[in-house]
């Protein structure tokens, strides 16, 4: 008897699911349904939550101002825990919800996995932060607001070589070591192009050391090797969680090189209980700085602080820009919410290459049909616990 009741109840629940799934398609024509995917829990949660918060601010602003040509936006962010499989699940449930445009995913590996599906659906996808070159490769429907990894690697090498960085011994840096995560596409993508470009630059790479996600706590060997090789600068194309350990362990062996990183280092000052003195003098190439006097930036930062009680990072800013890029592309193409996913995808793919957008993470940004963005990088240095433009 009990089993019968349970199975009947299950049938009822399941069929309701089918009905709701069908019901969504019709009610889709009055709003633009934009989905979002990113890690809201797990090790990379700081990025996903920032993206969610930043995007929501943009959505609320646009809706408060009357929407896009009178059509409001509905935004729905799903968690992927920085996991490719969960990202695809999130994509499918957003499709069931009626998503027409995807803002995401936040991190590269899930983005590549989702890209396979969004390409099949010809769904317009714009990522604020998934910076691997593989994200846009062969996917004409995906666009990046951030720099891609190869460009970050090349940009970093050119910055160290041409602009020059003064080491802690007072001389220009000539010996550089690299510590990267060989199990991560983001990190190894930047690393490869950095080393290639370094060959054309006046400094030499004296040590390249790797770690993997299974051995990402002990960096004593990598640091000892960099120290033995007299590296005055360590290039860290990695995320801030590992970087915070590297900074602490370098100090523990009396080794004080200049640390130079990319956008993954953004967030290092927010690690709970982290001794921010260790991060003094860390240089990072990042497109957004919250302390910039720019009026648009200041408005965004104060709104973000009011709502979430913390200073937004570049992921939040990238997400804010992504929503406005979608808006600009929708206006450019005169799209309406009733269009099918694929028609809307075709219209937006074309429109986004025609617009020029100036936002929080770059002035006069334009997009290539390949999906890459064109904009100029900015170098920041951490002084007294805040980012200062170099």
């Amino acid at each position: 008897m009990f089993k019968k009741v349970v199975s009947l109840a299950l049938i009822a629940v399941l069929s309701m699911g089918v009905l709701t799934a069908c019901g969504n398609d019709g009610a889709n024509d009055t709003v633009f349904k934009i989905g979002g995917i990113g890690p809201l829990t797990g090790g990379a949660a700081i990025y996903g939550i920032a993206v969610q918060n930043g995007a929501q601010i943009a959505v609320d602003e646009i809706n408060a101002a009357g929407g896009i040509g009178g059509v409001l936006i509905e935004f729905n962010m799903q968690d992927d825990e920085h996991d490719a499989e969960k990202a695809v699940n999130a994509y499918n449930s957003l499709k069931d919800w009626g998503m027409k445009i995807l803002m995401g995913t936040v991190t590269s590996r899930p983005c590549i996995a989702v890209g396979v599906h969004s390409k099949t659906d010809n769904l317009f996808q714009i990522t604020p932060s998934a910076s691997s070159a593989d994200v846009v490769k062969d996917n004409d429907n995906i666009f990046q607001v951030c720099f891609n990894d190869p460009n970050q690697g090349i940009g970093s090498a050119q910055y160290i070589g041409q602009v020059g960085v003064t080491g802690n011994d007072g001389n220009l840096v000539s010996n550089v070591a690299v510590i990267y995560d060989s199990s991560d596409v983001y990190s190894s993508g930047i690393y490869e192009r950095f080393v290639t470009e370094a060959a054309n630059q006046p400094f030499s790479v004296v040590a390249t050391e790797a770690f993997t996600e299974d051995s990402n706590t002990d960096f004593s060997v990598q640091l000892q090797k960099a120290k033995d090789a007299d590296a005055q600068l360590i290039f860290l194309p990695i995320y801030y969680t590992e970087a915070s350990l590297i900074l602490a362990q370098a100090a523990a062996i009396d080794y004080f090189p200049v640390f130079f990183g990319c956008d993954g280092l953004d967030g290092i000052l927010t690690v709970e209980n982290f001794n921010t003195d260790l991060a003094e003098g860390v240089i990072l190439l990042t497109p957004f700085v919250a302390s910039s006097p720019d009026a648009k930036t200041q408005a965004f930062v104060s709104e973000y602080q009011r709502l979430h009680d913390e200073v937004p990072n570049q992921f939040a800013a990238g997400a804010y820009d992504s929503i406005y890029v979608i808006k600009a592309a929708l206006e450019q193409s005169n799209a309406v919410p009733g269009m099918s996913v694929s028609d809307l995808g075709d219209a937006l793919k074309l429109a986004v290459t025609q617009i020029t957008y100036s936002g929080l993470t770059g002035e006069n940004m334009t997009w290539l049909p390949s999906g890459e963005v064109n904009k100029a990088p900015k170098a920041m240095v951490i002084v007294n616990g805040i980012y200062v433009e170099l």
Partner: protein
Amino acid sequence: MSFINYVINGLSLGSIYAIIALGYTMVYGIARMLNFAHGDVIMVGAFTVFFGVSMQGLNPIAAVFVSIAICITLGVTIEFIAYRPLRGAASSLVVLITAIGVSYFLQNLALLIFGANTKSFTSMVPINPVRLAGGEIVISGETIMTILSCIIIMISLTAFIKKTKPGQAMLAVSEDKGAAQLMGINVNGTISLTFAIGSGLAAIAGILLCSAYPSLSPYTGSMPGIKAFIAAVFGGIGSIPGALIGGILLGVIEILGRAYISSQLADVIVFMVLIIVLLVKPTGLLGRKLQEKV
């Protein structure tokens, strides 16, 4: 000079593995089960200290004792609720799956309570670093503390098992559960005691681990837990000196492999050594030969 640094770092890492491996090996020796939740008890221990010291402003030494007490309670409770009812179940796989379940439960509970963001752990070790050979060799206070703790724990644990009645009871239960019961030994009580000791050690290991590598998240315990499990198998699971030797060797091989062969292949080297040792000596370095009863 670098070589000496590497060996010291390897000893420090290996000592942490050894202390964690003790928990695996003792529980296996007595209850014949793999307690995969052990790694997560480490994380709970570290979080307790982090919460006590950094959030509540507790005295570090008091926090260490609170953390040990909480982990002991947790370990005994897990054994009582999740493992004891399954003892004598048809398949030992059932208990293994339960242990994995407990492990996920603890991780997700910590995610819920403490959040996913990595926290920076303040070192609980008050010793200043020692600089030798004109600053070429720096031995951190954490390294000294870890190696010392490992030695003290090993000596006192061996003495406990050899010299005290509960220790002898543990030996007897691991030899033959049925016979021990017939001799009037409280088997369930002895198993609880084993879990209590193992979990108390896990708390110490967690504090040492996070003091040496100051990063704390709900997943902090899982990888060191797996490495320590390997160390326990490597040394011969069920053997206490085996856990020490397995842990230390694993740490030194990992660091030296990373330094002299390739930093990318560190784990590959560790696992290759494990496979070779197990091929030559399937019970591990100090493991006893088990007579399979049919």
